[in-house]
């Protein structure tokens, strides 16, 4: 196994542990926004998609990259907006009186 791969696996495992510790503290109340919000974050694949598309020396690469950028961007924008839409509905008692 190459040294790079080992480093990358180390990063992956450590990030997973951080993720578990942070996400354990999210209350049940907010689990739906957590899922849509994490969907937005997993749209980070757009970075890889941009690199494939930007390199675009062949038509196939350009098509694959374009479709990948579009789908990843759907996740990013759709995920963040829908999460925000849900989160602004969570109000305390005082806010609930705004009719």
């Amino acid at each position: 196994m190459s040294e790079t791969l080992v480093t990358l696996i180390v990063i992956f495992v450590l990030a997973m542990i951080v993720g578990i510790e942070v996400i354990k503290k999210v209350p049940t109340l907010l689990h739906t926004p957590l899922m849509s919000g994490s969907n937005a974050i997993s749209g980070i694949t757009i970075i890889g998609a941009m690199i494939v598309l930007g390199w675009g020396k062949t038509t196939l690469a350009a098509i694959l990259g374009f479709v990948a950028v579009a789908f990843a961007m759907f996740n990013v924008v759709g995920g963040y907006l829908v999460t925000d839409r849900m989160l602004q509905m969570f109000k305390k008692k005082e806010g609930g009186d705004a009719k």
Partner: protein
Amino acid sequence: MKVALMDFAYLAAAVLFITGLKWLSAPATARKGNFLSSFGMLLAILVTLFDKHILSYWGILAGVVVGGSLGAWAARTVKMTAMPQMVAILNGFGGLASLLVSAGEWHRLALSDFPFPTNVAISIYASSIIGAVTFSGSLVAAGKLQEIISGRPVLFKGQHILNAVLFLACLGLATYLTMHTANPYAFLALNILALVLGVLLVIPIGGADMPVVICLLNSYSGIAAATTGFIINNHGLIITGALVGASGIILTQIMCKAMNRSLANVLFGGFGAASTTGGPAGTAAKGTVRQINAEDAAASLAYAESVAFVPGYGLAVAQAQHVARELGELLEKRGVKVTYGIHPVAGRMPGHMNVLLAEANVPYDKLLDMEVINPHFERTDVVVVVGANDVVNPAARNDPSSPLYGMPILDVDKARQIIFMKRSLNPGFAGIDNELFYNEKTSMLFGDAAKMLAALVTEVKQV
């Protein structure tokens, strides 16, 4: 831009994501957290534009505009009841993006004369398999939730063997490709097999178990993103993908625990199939059922000191959240203490019922989790169960022969009076009789949830 500088920018983005998730642990800071996270994403995207591999920007701009505007449209128009489907689709798109990136990288490397570095090859095939399974599996899950595809488990003989064979075939092809690089037919076959595998893995799972499946696919979509990071050697992508992977795993565990099922049982069980063996449900002590009318029910509610609503998905199906909130407010004006007890599987995904009630303007501090509200039932005067059934069935506590036995439930039978709103005496989703119907403290209020709640509102006003 220098490579090291770019890596630092990706690290900053990852820190923003983690902080954003941390702020999601309290409703007061959650919106800010989401904003912070989106800022991290913007940073990551802007920095990538400086990547030396990027030669053309027009395609990127077009992809961003097309995907972004469709995403914004979906986010604005989706109904809150359809949120599980939305999340399933987002999971699927994440998987597809990873699949396409790995295909693109494979294509680029295949054109060069050098053999694939082994670690990149392994990453590409892992990303393809996980991305493809996530994509096709999520589409099936979304189809089941939207009821385009039957929610019933699709079972056939030799299903598990076929899945095992497909999985081994994928691994075999991936190994072959890793050793003898750049056979486009083998790579295409790998992707197709993985797509088929994704469909076959999800079709045997019943509609009631979809909450677990979308959590698991959420995790896969994160892991797929992380494997993409392994391909292009990008730490930011790996960290971020791992975070999402972890989130999905935690939610999967929570949902399995709330349903008292192991993950293996959910994935292979075919629970709720037409041919289900069914537990000996007849053991519940049958007795007389007491009925109540809206007028009497309204009187007990109006003169109670404390009332707890226990909503199930039936409430959302009847679109009765708003009437329920109206009734709650009316009672509060009379000095009644009103709370809502939310079972983890009350909706169609983790936290779904909370979102539906928040949409109906119920303040979130009245939404109590199962663990929080359970000790309070003893001192609650009236519990109103609307559109829920299995999650309040005492058989889960005291009847070892019941299929529900061991599932954590809301202990509504400990309250002083229970008003059970239901269309008829038909058993719930899992087809299990509920002894609570025959409890002497229980009164059944038969009818459509929305109409009955509206009737209660009218009657309470007249008390």
